[in-house]
């Protein structure tokens, strides 16, 4: 007998958790002397109030879809991949190499090449932690955190000493050549006669992200590999009994996870900056954790949560611009979302389960009485 209906688990609990996080965030804003209601209005108008605003919101959301899917697929095999940040950095490196050193005739081909390279580089960065977890039992949470630091140092070294063009001051690669520039949403929607802000960075990578959602859904719930990943995630001992190799599942799920995180680079590096700069990921890898938790590791949930975080991110930037609320407020909100949807899940769940049980008891009592 289920303790409560499925819709409560999938919809009600995340919504209540989100509400709690929002209330606490409001209190923080109140405490620093700003009006939470005004802040909320400003955030909403700044993130969805115009096509320019939407252009930024969707740009951020694209990043978060990739990193959220990355964390989600790892969750299915009960791996906690905190290394999305580093894997996305390496993905950026892959994009930079492909865009700088291969003469692409057209952006569409460049996009395919860059997607492959970013996935490959991201996956490669996840490979060693995955291998160490599978074969030597090294805790993947710690190793992926370490790999984030190592990636940052590695990219710092490459950008400062190797990839920086002669005579340039800031540690960044040269601008990518024009044929690799991706069409923005303005260009795409313009082709259908829909007006959209020209200045906003949202681009064709959003469509790739949506495709990735569909792909992950098919993979997890419709393929043998997905079946095995979920089986392993629920019970390693049972997976062994069934002839599912733990090493294979850990490696594959982490490689896919790293690849998805790396693919974020086609949005931020190729689509927006059009060159590789220092700290290009801006914490998007970590936001993937909140997005995956909030979205219950389901691609549709990840998609919706990513849009929500896109709104938060863009709205937060507007707040920092117009009020005394610094950008770091977003990190606070992100932390609260992780806390309530991830760690304090039972705080919301247990009272709800009791409630539903009581309702059901009441119902069966009345039926029995009739």
């Amino acid at each position: 007998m289920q303790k409560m209906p499925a819709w409560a688990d999938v919809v009600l609990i995340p919504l209540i958790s989100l509400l709690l996080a929002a209330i606490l965030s409001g209190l923080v804003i109140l405490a620093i002397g700003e009006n939470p209601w005004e802040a909320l209005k400003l955030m909403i108008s700044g993130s969805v109030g115009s096509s320019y605003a939407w252009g930024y919101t969707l740009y951020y959301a694209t990043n978060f879809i990739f990193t959220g899917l990355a964390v989600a697929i790892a969750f299915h095999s009960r791996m906690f991949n905190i290394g999305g940040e580093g894997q996305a950095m390496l993905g950026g490196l892959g994009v930079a190499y492909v865009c700088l050193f291969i003469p692409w005739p057209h952006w569409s081909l460049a996009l395919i090449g860059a997607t492959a390279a970013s996935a490959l580089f991201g996956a490669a960065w996840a490979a060693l932690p995955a291998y160490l977890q599978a074969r030597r039992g090294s805790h993947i949470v710690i190793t992926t955190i370490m790999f984030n630091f190592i990636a940052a140092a590695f990219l710092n070294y490459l950008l400062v000493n190797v990839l920086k063009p002669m005579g340039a001051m800031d540690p960044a690669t040269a601008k990518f050549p024009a044929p690799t520039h991706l069409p923005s949403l303005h260009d795409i929607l313009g082709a259908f006669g829909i007006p959209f802000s020209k200045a906003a960075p949202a681009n064709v990578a959003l469509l790739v992200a949506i495709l990735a959602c569909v792909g992950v859904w098919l993979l997890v719930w419709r393929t043998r590999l997905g079946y095995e990943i979920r089986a392993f995630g629920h019970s390693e001992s049972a997976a062994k009994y069934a002839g599912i190799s733990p090493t294979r599942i850990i490696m594959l799920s982490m490689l896919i996870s790293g690849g998805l995180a790396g693919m974020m680079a086609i949005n931020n590096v190729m689509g927006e900056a059009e060159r590789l700069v220092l700290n290009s990921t801006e914490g998007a890898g970590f936001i993937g954790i909140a997005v995956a938790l909030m979205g219950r590791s389901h691609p549709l949930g990840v998609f919706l949560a990513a849009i929500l975080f896109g709104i938060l991110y863009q709205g937060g930037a507007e707040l920092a611009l117009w009020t005394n609320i610094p950008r770091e407020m977003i990190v606070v909100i992100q932390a609260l979302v992780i806390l309530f949807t991830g760690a304090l899940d039972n705080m919301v769940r247990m009272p709800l389960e009791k409630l539903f049980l009581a309702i059901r008891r009441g119902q069966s009592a009345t039926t029995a009485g009739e």
Partner: protein
Amino acid sequence: MSTPAIELKGISKAFGPVQANKDISIRVMPGTIHGIIGENGAGKSTLMSILYGFYKADAGEIWINGKKTEIPDSQHAIRAGIGMVFQHFKLVENFTVLENVVLGAEDGALLRPTLARARAQLKKLAEEYELNVDPDALIEDIGVGMQQRVEILKSLYRQADILILDEPTGVLTPAEADHLFRILESLKREGKTIILITHKLREIMEITDTVSVMRRGEMTATVRTADTSPPELAELMVGRKVLLRVEKAPARPGDKVLEVRNLSVTDDKGVKRIKDISFEVRAGEILGIAGVAGNGQSELLEALGGYQSATGTILVNGQPIDLTGSKSDGRTRRDRGIAHVPEDRQREGLIMDFQAWENVAFGYHHRPEYQKNRFLMDHAAMKADCERKMERFDVRPPNPMLLAKSFSGGNQQKLVVAREIERNPDLLLVGQPTRGVDIGAIEFIHQQLVALRDQGKAILLVSVELDEILSLSDRIAVMFDGQIMGERMPAETTAKELGLLMAGIRGEAA
């Protein structure tokens, strides 16, 4: 009449939607051994855990020695003079015996004086009750029999007058169980009150003074042991007449299906768990492997099932199978006609958070009948397959969309057995097929096993329940310490002889 040592009045307890205890009342007289018997899931352990303060009752009263007593936690139970030996021991593995005994009963903030006093006390108790244990041994280094003594010592060190033992003989050889019963008798002579939870009728008849029977969370009867009989108790437990023996025709063994030659298994810690064993199973026979848990049976099943590396030779239908490398896994074994009902359905046989239809394909999920095309699985086919198997094996409720964990133990086991038997394997490995299963499902599963045998299939049955081995097997091998101590025909042996073999004593047969 004297006051009861324990009196429970109207105890009720629910876990979520499951009512584990319903309005239970019971009186236990001081200085007696009181048995509580019932099927798995009848609520015996829950009731005793409430008495020990491990769970809190939803309703009801506890009276100790004629005084109403609140027991909100184990600390209060200990203060009221109650000790409990749980079925799964509550010991800290990397602590010494001494440290485990004093844990929670220390004299003061510093350890040194406590340990010194406990050492002396332990020596005294050992002399009084034949409870010898090395106080400085680590728990992880001593056997389960010893660990159980530590648990008893823990209670005695806390000066318990009432001792609850939950299924204490499950991990013991018959000889060790006899020793335990002698200890319990001497404790009774000292005036202590003992409650023995078990599902074995034999133990009830052997040692208890009175017995209470539980069924589905309710107390159905309390009788003097001398006034009752095993069939009567069995009927009280199940609520209907029970067939205590399995009906089966003599076996007609055919060709060798499984041949094991010089098989050895070494675990991750480098301990040799199976030591160079050889045996065979023929078509149309059930080979029962008897033995106390932890003597290599689990490793044997794992090695045969393909998820424990081993050395030696295994032939199936005369062809060798790989024991190491990528071809040594469950999938390859299944392809070779070996099906496996594992010992622990919750940890191995099923994914508890998968729905029934996903579980019914588990281990066979790569088979062509479950695939829609090269990439995607055929969910409709899997669900239809599940419905068919549920009907044929009478799984209730017959709903493929339910999660495995929402079925009862017996129905979970039926799902596993259905999945494995319906594959029509040449060889079926079965571990503890009826552990935690109600009697109705036990009868059904036993019939299915015998039917499979009669179709000319080979069955290797591992069970720690000697009764189950004796009633199902056509041939019995006894394992002790990773070795096969000997083979017997069920008609030509006795429980006593097998018990000696299980303890590693060969006797005249050697």
